[in-house]
């Protein structure tokens, strides 16, 4: 299961999307997330799906790989759907004992599920096409105007870089620890809830200890190389907007306009 997590992984390439400036991509993803919540009807989601499909096609990332990223949160999606389906009050269309499904429930459940799926797919596409370094560089630059109000944008970006950098490492580590304990007969995926929770102890303790140790070592290593925070630091690659970015903005603006128009024309479904 650990192998299925695609969030935070980077898929190197040279597509149109890869070449976009990370700042452009971050702004686009913000607009995209806003749209996911703004959309009021299914036609809007259709438009969004088309947009996403086009992005995926251009990016050269296999759709199968992207969709596999949904697997780890499938349970979560299903639960959200079921809860909304049964627990939304409104006009009843089906009833069995205390379980009832309402028109509003169906609509709401479908919306929530779609929103979750769109959020995951969109953000996965961002991290798959943008290296963590570029991503946090972009984030730092976008936040830098807020330095005036004492927002530590460099530190925030550094923290994010480190966090992203360590996701795969920690996953690897978890995998190794799970294997080592299974080799000693720990049964991790069987038994009731209580015994399963207990079975997590031999995995979590070593994991935490190694995470703390790593943090400590990293801090020492950074200090040894005279890291002192962002003040006066120059960078290896300067970010520059190019022609592709203009195209990206236009694309996004058109989509935003389309979504708003669809909302106004078709109204709430």
């Amino acid at each position, binding site marked *: 299961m650990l192998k299925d997590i695609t969030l935070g992984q980077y898929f190197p390439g040279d597509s149109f999307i890869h070449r976009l400036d990370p700042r452009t991509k971050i702004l686009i993803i913000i607009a995209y997330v806003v749209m996911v919540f703004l959309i009021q009807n299914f036609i809007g989601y259709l438009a969004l799906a088309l947009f996403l499909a086009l992005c995926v096609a251009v990016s050269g990332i296999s759709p199968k790989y992207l969709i596999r990223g949904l697997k780890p949160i499938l349970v979560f999606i299903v639960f959200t759907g079921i809860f909304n389906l049964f627990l939304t009050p409104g006009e009843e269309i089906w009833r069995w004992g205390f379980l009832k499904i309402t028109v509003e429930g169906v609509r709401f459940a479908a919306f929530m599920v779609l929103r979750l799926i769109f959020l995951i797919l969109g953000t996965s596409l961002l991290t798959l096409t943008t290296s963590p370094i570029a991503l946090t560089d972009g984030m730092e630059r976008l936040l830098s105007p807020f330095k005036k109000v004492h927002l530590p944008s460099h530190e925030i970006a550094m923290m994010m870089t480190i966090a992203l950098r360590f996701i795969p490492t920690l996953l690897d580590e978890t995998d190794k*620890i799970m294997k080592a304990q*299974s*080799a000693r007969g720990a049964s991790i995926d069987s038994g009731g809830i209580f015994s399963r929770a207990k079975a997590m102890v031999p995995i979590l303790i*070593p994991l935490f200890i190694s995470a703390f140790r790593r943090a400590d070592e990293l801090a020492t290593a950074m200090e040894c190389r005279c890291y002192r925070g962002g003040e006066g630091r120059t960078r290896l690659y300067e970010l520059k907007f190019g022609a592709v970015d203009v195209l990206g903005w236009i694309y996004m603006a058109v989509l935003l306009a389309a979504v708003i128009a669809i909302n106004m024309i078709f109204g709430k479904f």
Partner: protein
Amino acid sequence: MIKLENVSYTYMSGGPFEKKALDGVSLHINEGEFIGVIGHTGSGKSTMIQLLNGLLKPESGKVIIDGQDLSEKKVNIRDIRFKVGLCMQYPEYQLFEETVLKDICFGPLNMGLSQKEAEERAKFAANMTGLPEELLDKSPFDLSGGQKRRAAIAGILAMEPKVLILDEPTAGLDPAGRDEILFKIRDMHKRMKLTVLLVSHSMEDVAKLADRILVLNGGRVEMFGRPREVFAQSARLREIGLNVPQITMAADRLRAAGVDIPEGIYTVGDCYRILLPMLT
């Protein structure tokens, strides 16, 4: 005892970083044999041994332990793991209990042994790996690196497996500690008919201990034979990033310089026995 039939394994299959770690490996290991496994880093040693106790499932091919095909549904994989004790590479991170003794007991208790029996086995295993008694009540996190390694190995030994697999057990240990552990393992192998697979980067250790040597290269079996046969192919070994024991090199040089010394010398003891009469 252990049989691999055309086994392949690929990491991150289908992803962008797909990596074929094993490619059509077939081999047969008899009961009671001591096998040394060598290969360049990334040659698939750790992958291969993880297949042997079902931690990894082969992508194709069969893994057969004691006549049982691991891919069959009716095989209880936990029983296989108690039978095939695997000590992973850098096993220190598996320690988690409050005391060293409790940690070593983890495996035996999972087997369903009583507390008393488990502790007896734990103490025995700790002694085997050279862990002093007074450390057993300490927290495993207060041990030194080498002591942690010993505790981790003891955690596997305490399960008294029929097959013992050690992935570079001595990496990072001091020379005396290394020899101590290896010879205790050889001792157990001799006395209890334990089948041992020892993964090592030290040609000397493998030459001294193994009945047969398995050489992996790029996920394939490059050679599998007696030390004498394997180390006779020094040119090929060097080509794939390995080497022969230093003493073999020295003997080869002496022979090239005209000293009458036979081929197939791979331990200091052999060399000593042949050179000593010449010198006196």
